[in-house]
């Protein structure tokens, strides 16, 4: 069954078609949510919320773009908004804890490359990080990213280039060894 027929059946209230549409796309949505959130519980929450919104708003999908593109627009909105909310909450709590622990110094172990890579990606500005993860890690095209994030294709390319430059600078001392 092709996707437009499947979508028509979902609109008509066919629950088996809903599940089929979910099965066709859930892996990619969950993978993206996990890459961005780095946490299984959050990734599951974001994936669920994405599909709930998608099914609720399916009547507004006109088929101008691919269904997957439309779905990933919802995914990035849900994930990025959700992460901002969690970050604000955690920051508030960290500030409180920091205020309580003034004078306590924690010595950090020397991070290995995996940790350095994680820290470097985490430290990217949100837009750079999102484009880098979508393009280089999850294989989205710049056109898909542009639609999903509501930016021009050129902006996506520029952000990727800047993200790579920042990562290159952050990992320059390690990268030589790994590439060799």
């Amino acid at each position, binding site marked *: 069954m092709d996707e437009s027929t499947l979508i028509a059946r979902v609109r008509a209230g066919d629950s088996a078609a809903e599940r089929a549409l979910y099965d066709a796309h859930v892996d990619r949505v969950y993978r993206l949510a996990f*890459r961005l959130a780095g946490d299984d519980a959050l990734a599951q929450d974001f994936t669920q919320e994405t599909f709930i919104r998608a099914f609720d708003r399916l009547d507004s999908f006109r088929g101008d773009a691919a269904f997957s593109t439309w779905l990933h627009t919802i995914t990035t909105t849900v994930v990025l908004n959700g992460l901002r909310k969690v970050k604000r909450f955690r920051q508030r709590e960290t500030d409180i804890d920091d205020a309580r622990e003034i004078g306590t110094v924690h010595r950090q172990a020397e991070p290995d490359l995996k940790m350095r890579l994680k820290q470097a990606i985490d430290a990217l500005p949100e837009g750079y990080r999102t484009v880098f993860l979508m393009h280089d890690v999850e294989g989205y095209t710049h056109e898909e990213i542009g639609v999903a994030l509501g930016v021009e294709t050129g902006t996506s390319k520029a952000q990727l280039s800047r993200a790579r430059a920042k990562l290159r600078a952050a990992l320059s001392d390690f990268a030589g060894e790994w590439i060799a």
Partner: protein
Amino acid sequence: MTDQYEDPKFDAWLKDAARGTYHAPPTTPRDEMWSRIAAARQRRARRVIELRPWMRWVTAAAAVLALGIGIGRWTADRSSGKGTDVAVTRGVNREIDSLAGVAYQVAATQYLSRTEAFLTSFRADANRSVNTARLTRQARELLTTTQLMLDSPAANNPRLRSLLEDLELVLMQIALLNPVRDGRDRDLINEGMNQSNVLPKLRSAIPAGPVPARTEGAL
């Protein structure tokens, strides 16, 4: 053509390294997520029936009509000079009730948003042994608010009351977390939250939009 800032060899290495090590996703838990999606959609479907847009218009029209009738009666009473004091008192009382209702809605929405952020963060941190003292402190604060909400007119709504009771149970469990056997307790709390679908219920009770403004339909 590559610009001066590009380094294809590094970029290829970076892609491979990031794919293999940065937030590498596990197998998709399809069935678990689907069952929660189906349950949440059923609940939302019931809610949509309650809050269809045309019903809001009908409600608004009815409110305007009632207001018009009220003003008409009040002015009629004033002109006839009978029952003026009673009508004014009733009007003021209704206005106070209405303002109190809005205040409860604002408070409820803010409380639900805070609780959602806390429980989402709790689930996300479940495997990381985040500071138990901090978690229990936050849970106790929210538990106090939950119990106040349960005693307030906001809990007259049966759906909200049921949600508050679920939240009270979860928050009480978190407030009583034992630092020694913390990991096991957190797993049990998470299992309970999944079984009772408390987070999806909580999210569906929070209206869309920025917290301070999103009071419409909060309860």
